[in-house]
């Protein structure tokens, strides 16, 4: 019975993975189409430089024309991708694979640390709130939460630059309030469930109640939340990195969009879609698994 369940889960996972990859590729090709037909494609700032001779400008335009045919671009891109070659960035003149390999760890680092900090702070604060039900605590945390939620991510980024805090702290500040309100309402709902009430009436210790009754109830939506919060923090990383000039994926995406760099946009979209989709798939699967295993 157990083996059957795990194999069906495995098959589900594989199917999802395939779906995910094809969706990611679809997203990448969609953004390629967008870039190709957007105004300003194939035009470079060097066209305004009067030092270039007419023949040089002609030669440059002819070179740009190689990108013109969209079906051929798809074909070349996909076949190169099959070989592991992601092409070369037009504006930075370096292989896209190398750029991604350099910048992904930086963004990943900030996102994971920011997420970790936000989760830690949100969970601890929510648990504290559970233990002390006084109105002062509730009011002040609601006010703080509200305040942090109301700050635009761009302002948080500017503050982070000024106070010289690392990027992950800004990401944590942006994600924390969203997590806190949800975790708090989840834990409160779980705390007021009849069987938990019964356990409390019986005089069970708070830590026992927490581990054996509340957490298993709250686990599936919390795990789903991990995926969603990952997507949120990744999304917040882009304007934050752009404003604090951190050399990560966000800044690369910003630069690629402004510079109409087709190979870069396509690949960054692919990577970002895969990551976001994977996070949500993980959240979904985890939620399902634990929902199945809950007593």
């Amino acid at each position, binding site marked *: 019975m157990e083996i059957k369940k795990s194999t069906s889960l495995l098959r589900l996972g594989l199917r999802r993975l395939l779906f995910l990859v094809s969706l990611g590729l679809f997203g990448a090709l969609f953004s390629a189409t967008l870039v190709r037909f957007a*105004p*300003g*494609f194939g*035009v*470079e*700032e*060097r*066209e*305004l*430089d*009067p*030092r*270039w*001779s*007419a*023949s*040089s*400008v002609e*030669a*440059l335009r002819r070179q740009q024309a190689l990108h013109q045919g969209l079906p051929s671009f798809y074909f070349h891109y996909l076949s190169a991708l099959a070989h592991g070659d992601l092409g070369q960035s037009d504006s*930075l*003149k*370096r292989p896209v694979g*190398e*750029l991604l390999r*350099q*910048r992904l760890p930086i963004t990943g680092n900030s996102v994971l*640390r920011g997420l970790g*900090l936000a989760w*830690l*702070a949100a969970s*601890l*604060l929510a*648990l*504290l709130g559970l*233990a*002390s039900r006084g109105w002062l605590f509730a009011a002040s945390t609601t006010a703080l939460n509200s305040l942090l939620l109301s700050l635009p991510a761009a302002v948080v980024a500017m503050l982070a*630059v*000024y106070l*010289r*805090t*690392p990027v*992950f*702290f800004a990401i944590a500040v942006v994600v924390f309030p969203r997590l806190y309100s949800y975790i708090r309402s989840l834990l409160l709902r779980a705390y007021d469930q009849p069987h938990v009430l019964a356990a409390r009436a019986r005089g069970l210790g*708070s*830590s026992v109640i927490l581990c054996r009754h509340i957490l298993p109830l709250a686990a599936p939506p919390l795990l789903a939340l991990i995926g969603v919060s990952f997507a949120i923090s990744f999304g917040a990383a882009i304007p934050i990195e752009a*404003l*604090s*000039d951190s*050399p990560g994926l966000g*800044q690369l995406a910003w630069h690629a969009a*402004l*510079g*109409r760099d087709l190979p870069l946009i396509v690949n960054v979209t692919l990577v970002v879609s895969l990551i976001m989709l994977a996070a949500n798939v993980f959240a979904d699967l985890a939620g399902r698994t634990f929902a199945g295993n809950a007593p």
Partner: protein
Amino acid sequence: MIRRLSVVLSLAIALCCPAFVAAQSAGQSGGELHFCLHGEPKTFNPLLVEDGQSETIRYLTGGVLIRLNRQTQALEPGLATSWKVSADGRTIKFHLRSGLHFSDGTSFTSEDVAYTMKALMDPQLHSPTGDSFRSGEGQIAIQTPSADTIVVTFPSPVAGLDRLFDQVAILSAHSSKKEMAVLGPFYVADYTPGSYVLLRRNTYYWKKDKEGKPLPYLDSIRLDIQRNHDIEILRFRRGEIHLINSLDADLFDRLKKESPAAAHDAGPSLDSEFVWFNQVPTAAFLEYKKVWFRTTEFRRAISLAINRADLSRIVYGGHAQPAYGPISPANHFWFNSALPTPQYDSAAALRLLAGAGFHFDGNTLRDGLGNPVEFTVITSTGNKPREQMVAMIQQDLSQIGIKVNIVTLDFPSLIERITRTYDYEACLLGFTNSDLDPNSQMNVWLSSAENHQWNPRQSKPATAWEAEIDRLMQAQASATSDKKRKADWDRVQQIVAEQQPFIYLINRDAMSAISPAVIGSAPSVLDPHAFWNAEVLRLGSDPSLGAQK
């Protein structure tokens, strides 16, 4: 339980705290200049340089035959001890210094210069440096009579030939390091993409100071890649970087208030900002508007109705001068000082317009057919001075009844509109000029050229004055004496002042920030403003320098 939780919470926060504390690194070891590049250098090959960052690296690492002294604006011997340009302007002969070596020890001879020039003039190579030499069709001829003489002959005369060699960094013909073997004061020691470029002193550098000590004084130069100007100035204030080569006016004022010794305004630069009207006959906007833009009186009236003094005072905080022509007064030799400088006068503007058939009823200006005068000015997004200037021009022109709409576009879309689709009415842009000799602007003034922005690529000149400018451009390109060329250029500037195809607004000042710890700096109006004399710069002790990276 609360107590336990609070302990865990505070522990967690304490664990994360070390990450918040900015890294404290060891103090400076005396001799590393530290400043920022505003983007990634796209190439280290000096022949292919087209962006500002690569040009900075080329300036600091490349050895050139003739160097333009940024302060005196005169040419100085570099790798060549002397040179002679022939009477017909086609041939140049150099006497090179002997006994010099590249940064990796390879010896320097005329063969390297020949190799560099051949690579530069290769028709397959497309670069601004090479194109500056391409005055006509044909191959160049190079002779190397000895190891320290070289003669280069071009197929047709090249205007200002000797000055162009300031851009040509000599490559080694034999070194295994290819373009990384250099003759300049520094060489590229380390490059981490996205992070920094480290240049170290070239121990083989030929130049010595007056006492015979080898240059450069600095041990190394560290160039951090920092796109954000606000973060850059923050780091300058904290003493993490020693100079900022080019400052915007508002950042300059901010800095001036705090550390007046560090902020330097060298005076008007060669850069200009201007606005022009689309005069392309096939452009996709209303016909009657095309008639307005082609009317000289209309353009001159607009020029009179714009308050340049206000633009300079408010947008640039006084760090700009009103401009009336393509050549900045900072360009001592080529500027036509006899040009008229019409002051802001909206009444005179209205009189001119009335003479051209326009009618102002106190509220709206209308043309002869009764159409209200209204047009859209496009400019690039993200450039605060430009956005502010358009807003001020909008108000200025509303005084004479003209309604101006403002649209800001991102650069690629903007360029597409002005170079391909011609789907715009008026545009405000700037020109960053690094060249004293206006011959580099040939492609702006020739009516058949790409950069003749208001009506590019004409098969034959659309107006008599454009035909005259064409004739003058051809004349100055083949003229052999600078005096004759200056006469031609003076006449071009006069025509531009009369016809206003480009309505010049201001020449901004060359502003830079240099820490008092940098000894020997002499900010100039020519780029690179702050470190043009990098080889004689030195770092001294300065109490304001705290912990640096």
